[in-house]
């Protein structure tokens, strides 16, 4: 789809088929996401106490779920890199771990942005030390640490192992941070800010579910396309001798 026709013809079948399939999947999930956003923005009524600002909830929560999912997916692939005897498969799992960490990074930056966009009108402050927001900030920092470590290790065989280790340790650290920030907040500032909409009525939950599904499918499509680009790029560099 996004590939020039001439280039597409010369590709071997094994590579051409997934490229075409995931391009179409990307388009379809993008359309579905647009539809879900349209649904969230215009088709359901305003909230009783927050007015129309609460609509950011749909995009914020769905992006947050994707961020945490891809983060733990990176740790999962990191584990598989360790238990894989075959060199080629270990390299493939390393590509997946790298891609899912990049996805986690992109989505956690989105969580931070939409979180502050939502905090400004409702609580009058750009940033709030809410356990969820703080742990996604720490997640973002660990993602940057992971990518920098990968970027600064030229040796492929060593890079694969330590990236797997860093992704596993970071996934251990996120619950610790969430738990300790939760505890820390209860000591310092008792909950002054209003909790999120607990009394979510039926149609809000339905729209939220649709949004979650749409964003998740979009992230899967993005993951696969990015996974192809990373594996092709690293194979190319390996065969050019950059290791």
């Amino acid at each position, binding site marked *: 789809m996004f590939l020039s026709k001439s280039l597409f013809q010369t590709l*071997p079948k*094994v590579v051409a088929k*997934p490229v075409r399939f995931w391009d179409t999947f990307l388009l379809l999930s993008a359309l579905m996401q647009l539809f879900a956003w349209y649904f969230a923005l215009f088709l359901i009524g305003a909230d009783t106490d927050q007015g129309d600002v609460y609509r950011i909830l749909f995009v914020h929560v769905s992006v947050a779920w994707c961020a945490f999912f891809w983060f733990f997916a990176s740790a999962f692939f990191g584990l598989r890199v360790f238990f894989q005897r075959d*060199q*080629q498969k270990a390299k*493939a799992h390393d590509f997946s771990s790298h891609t899912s960490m990049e996805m986690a990074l992109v989505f956690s930056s989105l969580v931070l942005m939409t979180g502050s966009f939502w905090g400004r009108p409702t609580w009058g402050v750009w940033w709030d030390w809410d356990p969820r927001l703080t742990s996604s900030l720490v997640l973002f920092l660990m993602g940057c640490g992971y990518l920098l470590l990968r970027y600064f290790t030229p040796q492929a065989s060593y890079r694969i192992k330590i990236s797997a280790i860093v992704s596993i340790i970071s996934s251990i650290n996120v619950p610790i941070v969430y738990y300790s920030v939760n505890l820390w907040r209860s000591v310092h500032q008792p909950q002054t800010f209003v909790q999120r909409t607990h009394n979510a009525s039926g149609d809000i939950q339905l729209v939220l579910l649709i949004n979650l599904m749409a964003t998740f499918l979009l992230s899967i499509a993005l993951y696969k396309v990015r996974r192809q680009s990373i594996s092709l790029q690293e*194979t190319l560099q*390996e*065969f050019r001798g950059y*290791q």
Partner: protein
Amino acid sequence: MISCESISIQFGSEVVVENLSFSLQKGSSLALIGPNGCGKTSLLKILAGLARPSHGQVLYGTDTKNNHENPLQKNLSCLYLSALPAFFLDQSCLENLNLYLSCYNKTYHIDYARELFSKAGLSKKMNSPVRTLSTGQKRKLTLICAVLTLPDLLLADEPSLGLDKNGVTFCLEIFNKLKENNVSFIIASHDDVIVKWCSDVLPLGSFSSQTRNAVPKKLMAIL
């Protein structure tokens, strides 16, 4: 003593050594020769357990029955003399010697060490920091450490680098003394004297194959 099965060393996609297999009996010595960049040092590092080959495995062990991949399990003590002598530069020669020996859980008699130092011409420098030694003298100090630790396997990378005339004779003398104690050697060297001294020779130049220039079908499927 040590045997490798179809070892291959790869720098990125360039295969430097392709399925090399050899085994070394106790007490024998092997010289690795070949042009620069044919993987002598990386092979030595793999045999020392510092690095891992991209394919194949290295087995340590007196008899082939209970071979182990890791030298430690067979408590086989192997000493790796790298191209650059490794010492704490601020500590004196004796302290470094003690450190080497305590790593290998060996003790030594001070007179024997003094005699070795005087033979190597370092008797004045015994208590001065290693920083004041020249490269040749540092090389002799590594040889003295080797002869005092008496490892089962000695891996030496260019042992005669930077040694003058009587330095080389001192090095051969040390090697002969080690050979009497049934120590096996693997030496990477360009010095003909050392290569002639070793019992057999392994030219590494012939094992490198031209680079694979196509992505294997299996890898493409995973892309």
